[in-house]
């Protein structure tokens, strides 16, 4: 029973959405919007699940004093601090009637003073690591690596004045070799072809996985109960 009911729900919903897609008339057409609302409502509950899971993992780590458990104290403390700041509307000038992100609120202060600079710092560090990795990885060791190297070179030079001055003198018949033109070509021809191939592959994979789910062949989403 535990397996049959979820499988039947999956089959019915999957079938209903296929029907809604191919018969764009009332009442089938409305099914799509209706199920989307259901999905949005369920998505909100995912936050509770996510918060619960975060606490479970980190409290377990702290309790058993596993590797780097001290960082978990920071995570859990941060979680409760931000949650309390938002839920209790600490520091909101208008009290309970004001927005939790209102100027002067603790939530806004925490966001602006910690979350924002921390995220920006983490992302900024990429510039340093990308530079170091490019230097070590972009070596023309094989034909494939050479193609990658040349493509990277063109794209990297694209916004720079050097990219312009290196090739601006080329005569009209060779204008396609001008670096800005070459970079546009790299992005809109080989890149696009590759992206399309990947997208078509993914789409076919989604279709086959969806069919397996609807027909009850794929049951891993049921967890251990599905076995």
């Amino acid at each position, binding site marked *: 029973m535990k397996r049959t009911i979820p499988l039947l729900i999956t089959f019915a919903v999957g079938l209903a959405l296929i029907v809604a897609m191919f018969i764009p008339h009332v009442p089938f057409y*409305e099914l*799509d*919007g209706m199920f*989307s*609302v259901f*999905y*949005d409502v369920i*998505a*909100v509950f*995912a*936050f509770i699940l996510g918060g619960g899971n975060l606490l479970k993992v980190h409290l377990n780590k702290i309790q058993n004093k596993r590797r780097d458990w001290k960082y978990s104290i920071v995570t859990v403390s941060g979680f409760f601090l931000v949650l309390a700041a938002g839920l209790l509307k600490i520091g909101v000038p208008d009290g309970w009637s004001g*927005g939790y*992100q209102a100027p002067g609120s603790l939530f806004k202060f925490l*966001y602006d003073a910690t*979350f*924002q*600079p921390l*995220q*920006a710092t*983490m*992302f900024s560090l990429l*510039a*340093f690591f*990308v*530079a*170091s990795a*490019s*230097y*070590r990885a*972009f*070596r*023309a*060791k094989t034909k494939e690596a050479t193609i990658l*190297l040349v493509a*990277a*070179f063109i794209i*990297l*030079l*694209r*916004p*720079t*004045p*050097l990219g312009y001055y290196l090739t601006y003198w080329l005569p009209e018949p060779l204008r396609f070799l001008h670096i800005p033109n070459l970079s*546009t070509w790299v*992005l*809109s021809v080989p*890149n*696009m072809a590759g*992206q*399309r191939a990947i*997208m078509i592959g993914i789409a076919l994979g989604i279709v086959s996985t969806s069919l397996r789910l609807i027909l009850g062949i794929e049951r891993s989403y049921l967890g251990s109960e599905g076995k």
Partner: protein
Amino acid sequence: MAEAEKTEKTEGTEKKGTFVEKMGSVDRRIIFLLIGLAVLIPIIIEYTTAIPTSPLVQNLFDKIESLPPGSKVLMSFDYGPSTVPENQPMATAFTRHIFEKGHKLYLMALWATGPRQSEALIEDVISVEFPDKKYGEDWIHLGYKAGNQGLINTLLSDFTAMYTTDLDGTSIDEFPMMKGIGSLTDFDLILGLGSGFPGTKEWVQFAGDPGDIPVGGGTTAVMAPLLFPYYPRQIVGFLGGLQGAAEYEYALIKQYPKYEEKSRLASTSMGPQVWAHLVIVAFIIVGNITFFIERSRRKRY
């Protein structure tokens, strides 16, 4: 004597080899230092570079330019603080253009971190440069809703099913500009500013394509190649990273010279990016030269 000459030659080769080897494996701290300088110096000396507008960006600019005044433009903030340097100049340039043309601006977010970025836009641009634009009549902040692409799907069939109030909890029925908004198809243009999932791609797949709504936007540079398959049939145009934003600023200043002083956020940020790229290119060249020298030496001996 001959033996001494031979020894000297060998030592010379060893010295050369050592230099080549050193250049082939530069300490990462030196790379970090040079990248740091390449970023810092252009910021200090305020180095800027003109970035002419590419057709990809110009198409989107022309689309906003050609919409009749009063057109409804939905702008979604689907990014967080980490990509503010790339995405925020796009939002700023779009907002200036939208208000300049007299369109109505609807702000929303698919990311929980999005509303804070739109609030920054309100504080820095709308309140300062367009104080005459009235909330609820010319622009509105609808805030964030969960659901990712599912939310877009719902908005496509019934906008008010998800957005019953604005960000502050006021009923949307109280705002004149919300009259006539039943679904996403009532918008004249959707601008998705994204840096991941869900983002501009999802706006194309779940709103633009099924609803036949013009979609444009901007993404971080690493996300931009993913949008090329949709251009130009499914996406009007898009801004790829900081360069795309700088290109849009260039187009805006060209059309409206009064923004010459103000609209420089992306252009000034391009300086550090340009120099950082040049440093990376220089290191790639050095790395490959030393690689070929070492390889030819290995073949020889």
